[in-house]
Structure formats: structure tokens, C-alpha cells
């Protein structure tokens, strides 16, 4: 029900008492402004962390062989461990429920020629979905698929920097590339948040690479991502178990830390997640602190306003205002002022973040900003606070006998 008359009465009361309205509005606007700024900066810090970590999938595990440092079961110290396709099948089958994707990898430094341009790059033979592991994003064409593996196709997916180095402005997609003397077709181009280095890789089907370089069943290393449903602790347990099993399979002393190396991002992830959680809590505390300060501010002002208006309220009651009319008038005023000034503070805060955001990157604050639900939530909180803050003194004012109110000066 929209009662124009009531709003007219309220607008008049607000606009004719400017100082009072501005004072209370300022408190709310300032609280929301601070809230927006602090929350935004906090989010910026979080974004920086997330970005640092986005270079590879956060659930990746890498396994690569090394030389043993302990004699075991008749094997000499310093034995070079070599992974094979058998290890790949072993891992894939044994841990199918815990692995999201797994790929063997072969890697060679190769000379790549396109027309007159040439340079050395790292050629990697991998399985499809390897792009997930690297957090690479195919910007043109496609990544390798299972047919490429089966058919041992001579195709490559090249990094953005390879395209830039060799092709300049033109698109590499569909072109033939001479890699180590063999012609490959470029079926895709990718970008990688890991940076220029990661964008100078060239991916080719693992089977193609295995056939051309060595013609055996050797595997350099494995990369995989674990099932994202695993908790971080479960993921760490999983990689330790895998480590043990592989050592057993290759007859390496269980205490030999060097025979096979495993790097699980989950352990790092655990630390960073802990830090992020800490940061979130800090942001939350700061945010709530600011809000509470705002709530206290608006409450104080409401108490003052009602006090100041005691006489006016007494007059209104003497000429026939019911207590309900008094309470609703004061509360609607409070809501209107908090809503408008809260919105003003929000716009100001977002504006400041928008303007200063880019220059804050050197302080590890990336894309500072607040999500709309958070801000709307904060504003609603303040409006509610304004209501509650307005309600108690308004209720009290409405209960003061008009005669007492009229006597007040």
C-alpha cells in the first residue's frame, strides 16, 4: 500500500531538517563506504592468491623418476628408474576412482621451422585433457583427442608464443609446421596463465611422439589431476599411497626418497587454502566491524533525533496522532535515510575501487571489488539496523504522555 500523503509528510520532515538528515545519512554512507572499500581490498588480495595458483590446475600431481640412493633387493645404488606404458596402465586402472585425468608425458627440445622462421621449443607428447592439468585454454582450433592418440596423427597444438614467434600476425591454425624434420599440422593454439614459458610448449599425441622418438614404451613422467571430490587430506594420502605402490613396483627401498619423485599440489594448496580462509575471516571481521560501527552510529543518531523531536511528537499526539502513526513515521524516515545514504556510500565505494583498482596491483591487490549480493546484504543489514535503531526510541517516544512531551523544551 503506497500512501502518498504519508511519504509527503516524511519527505518534508527529512528535507526541512537537513542537518539532522545529513548527519544520520553521513554515518550510514560512511559505514557502507568503508565496508565496500575494505571488502573490495580484501577480495583483491584473495584474487592475487588465486591468480598465483591458477597457473596449473590446483588438484594436479606430477610423478617423475630419478636415480635410487639406496641399494634394495639386490639392485645397486644409483639405478636409473624408467617409467613405461605399463606404469601408465597400472596407475590408470588401480586408481581410476581417484584420478580425474592422467597423462604420460614425453618431452624433447626440438627445432621448429616455419618458412623462414625457426627456433627451439619443447615438444611434449601427452594425452588428451592434458590442457586441464596446465590450466591451458585453447583459443583457436581444439586440443588433442583420443583419435589423435589412436591414429598417431602428426598434429600439434602450439602455445600462443610459438604462434607469435613463428607466424607473426597470421594465424597458425591449419598450417604445416616442420618439427625436427617432420611435418605436423597445427590443429590448435592455446594460452596458458602460467606465462610465456608455458606458452612456448608444443603438444603432440603421446603415441606419435613415442613412435618417432625412441620407438619404445618409455614414459618420461606422469601428470594427473585427482578427483576434485577428494578432500585435501585425502588427496595427500592418495599421492603417498601411489608413491609407495610405484616404489614397490620398481623395487625401490620404501625409505628412498629419490627413486621416484611425487609433487602434489594439494599440499601447497592446503597451505594457501589455509591462508585464504584466514584472509576471508579477516575480511569478514573487518566487514562486520564496520557494519557494527555503522549500526551503533545510526542507533545513537536515532536516539538523539527522537529526543530532539520529543516536543514535536507531543504536539502531533495532542492533535490526534496515534502511537502507531508516530512509530511508523520515525521508522520510515530512518529507513529512507539509511537506504538512500547507504546506496550513496556504495556507489562512492565502488567508484573509488574502480578508479584506484589498476594502480593497486603492485600491492598484491588484484581486481578489488565487491559482489553485488554482499553489498546488497550489507545495505539491507544497515536498513534493518536503522529500523531497529529507530524502533526502540520511536516506541518510547510514542509512549511518552503528550503532556510530558509538550513540557519538554
Amino acid at each position, binding site marked *: 500500500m503506497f500512501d502518498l*500523503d504519508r511519504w509527503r*509528510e516524511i519527505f*518534508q520532515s527529512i528535507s*526541512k531538517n537537513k542537518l539532522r538528515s545529513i548527519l544520520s545519512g553521513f554515518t550510514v554512507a560512511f559505514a557502507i563506504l568503508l565496508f565496500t572499500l575494505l571488502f573490495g581490498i580484501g577480495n583483491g588480495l584473495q584474487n592475487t592468491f588465486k591468480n598465483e595458483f591458477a597457473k596449473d590446475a590446483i588438484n594436479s600431481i606430477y610423478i617423475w623418476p630419478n636415480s635410487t640412493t639406496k641399494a634394495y633387493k639386490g639392485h645397486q645404488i644409483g639405478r636409473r628408474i624408467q617409467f613405461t606404458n605399463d606404469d601408465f596402465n597400472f596407475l590408470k586402472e588401480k586408481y581410476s576412482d581417484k584420478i580425474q585425468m592422467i597423462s604420460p608425458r614425453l618431452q624433447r627440445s626440438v627445432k621448429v621451422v616455419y618458412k623462414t622462421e625457426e627456433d627451439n621449443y619443447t615438444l611434449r607428447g601427452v594425452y588428451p585433457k592434458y590442457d586441464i592439468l596446465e590450466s591451458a585454454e585453447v583459443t583457436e582450433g581444439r586440443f588433442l583427442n583420443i583419435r589423435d592418440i589412436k591414429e598417431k596423427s602428426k598434429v600439434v597444438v602450439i602455445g600462443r608464443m610459438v604462434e607469435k614467434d613463428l607466424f607473426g600476425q597470421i594465424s597458425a591454425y591449419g598450417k604445416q609446421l616442420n618439427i625436427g624434420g617432420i611435418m605436423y599440422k597445427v590443429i590448435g593454439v592455446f594460452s596458458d596463465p602460467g606465462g610465456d614459458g608455458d606458452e612456448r610448449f608444443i603438444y603432440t599425441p603421446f603415441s606419435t611422439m613415442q613412435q618417432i622418438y625412441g620407438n619404445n614404451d618409455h614414459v618420461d613422467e606422469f601428470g594427473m589431476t585427482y578427483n576434485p571430490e577428494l578432500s585435501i587430506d585425502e588427496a595427500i594420502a592418495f599421492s603417498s599411497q601411489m608413491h609407495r605402490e610405484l616404489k614397490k613396483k620398481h623395487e625401490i627401498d620404501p625409505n628412498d626418497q629419490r627413486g621416484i619423485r611425487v609433487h602434489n599440489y594439494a599440499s601447497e594448496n592446503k597451505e594457501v587454502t589455509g591462508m585464504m580462509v584466514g584472509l576471508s575471516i579477516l575480511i569478514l571481521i573487518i566487514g562486520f566491524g564496520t557494519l557494527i560501527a555503522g549500526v551503533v552510529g545510526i542507533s545513537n543518531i536515532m536516539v538523539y533525533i527522537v529526543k530532539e523531536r520529543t516536543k*514535536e511528537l507531543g504536539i502531533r*499526539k*495532542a492533535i*490526534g496522532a496515534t502511537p502507531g502513526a508516530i512509530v511508523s513515521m520515525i521508522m520510515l524516515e530512518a529507513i529512507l535515510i539509511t537506504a538512500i545514504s547507504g546506496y550513496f556510500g556504495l556507489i562512492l565505494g565502488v567508484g573509488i575501487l574502480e578508479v584506484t583498482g589498476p594502480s593497486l596491483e603492485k600491492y598484491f591487490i588484484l581486481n578489488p571489488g565487491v559482489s553485488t549480493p554482499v553489498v546488497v546484504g550489507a545495505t539491507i543489514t544497515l536498513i534493518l539496523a536503522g529500523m531497529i535503531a529507530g524502533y526502540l526510541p520511536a516506541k518510547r517516544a510514542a*509512549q511518552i504522555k503528550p*503532556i510530558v512531551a509538550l513540557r519538554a523544551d
Partner: protein
Amino acid sequence: MIRIENLHKSYPIGKDSLHVLKGLNLHIKEGEFVSIMGSSGSGKSTLLNIVGLLDTHDEGKYYLNGQLIENLNEKKAAVLRNKFLGFVFQSFNLISYKTALENVALPLYYKGVARKERLEIALEYLDKVGLKEWANHLPNELSGGQKQRVAIARALVTKPKVVLADEPTGALDSTTTDSVMDLLKEINDEGMTVFVITHEEEVAAQTNRVVRLKDGVIISDELTQVETKTAKAI
């Protein structure tokens, strides 16, 4: 119109209580112009507050327009005030940020009268108190007498049964006092019951009936010369 029987009122002061009204009996008929006289502390303001439903009584009976006033909550009191009573205060009690017209129209707002209509009615009443030209002035731009006229217009705008005036001339000089009293008399002549509280003999002398109050009891209740004259004239 107003009937009071054995009315008592005490105010608590710390652990003790101050017995202000000690069993008043008063009957004011419709169309009377009554003044309550008494020095400060005699209980006259307390009486007006009770009659005006601004305060409650402890003991006794109070009938307003034939209706027994008891167990009145704030909301009912507000409705009754709005319907039956118009107030004029010593300190005018106009709302400072509203114009004369808006002040007069305010009781109608609480009565639920539409804006356009209530401004029209308010202007009519301002005209009646001779302040039509001052309708859009704020109270601080008006003289004391003008403010009191606005307050009287505000008291009348809801067409109440009784106008209650608490020291209406207390803050005015003698010339303005006379003009305000003339206005009240005029209203009374139109049939309105007017109930004035004062400590000034000259003011009381202009009403038709003077009730003298001392220490919470009525010591005299008599008709004035004016009343007798009018009565004779009739």
C-alpha cells in the same frame, strides 16, 4: 459535555505521592465558556490534562460527550482527542518547520482527510482567524498573537466538541490578549464549548463561568457578569 465526579489525581514524587486533585466535581454543558482560575500549583493544569485526555486520572469518573473515559489506551485516546478536542497551548506548540497552513491542516492528516481537501479546510479556518495572507509563513515569521491564532485555527479545524485552552494568553501582551479572547468568545458564540485555564483575572472575567481552584479543590463556581448580562438580554 464534560462531567467530572469525585476526580482524584496524584503524582508520585520519589516514595511519596503528591495529591494534586482532591475529589473534583464539575459539569460543563455544551456551549459554555468556562475558565478555571487558580494560582500555580492549584491543580488547574492537571485538570486540563485529564480533561484533554493527555493524562489519566486515578479515581472518580470522567464523562466526555456522555462517554465514560476509562482504561483508555494511547490509540483510543488519540482518536478521541482528534475527534472531540481541540488544544490551544500557552507556548503555541506549532511545528516549526511547517507553514501556518500545514500546521492547521495537520490534525486533518491524522483524521485521514485527503491532502487537497484538508488544505482547503485549513485555509478556510485561517481566514476565520484573519490570517489567510499568512498561510505560507513559517511560525517564526509570525508574531505571538498570530501564532496563537494559528493554534486556535488548528484547534478548530477538526470541528471538535470542546476547545481546551491552557493559558492561551500567558505569552501575550494585553492588546493581543484581548484579540485572542475576542476570538475565543466569537467561537463560543458559534456554539463551541470553550474551556480556558488561566491565572489572570481579566481573562477569566471575559468568560461566562469562572471555576476557582485552590489546592486541588473547587472553592467557588459562579457565573460572571457577562453571563448574567447575556442571560438578561435573552
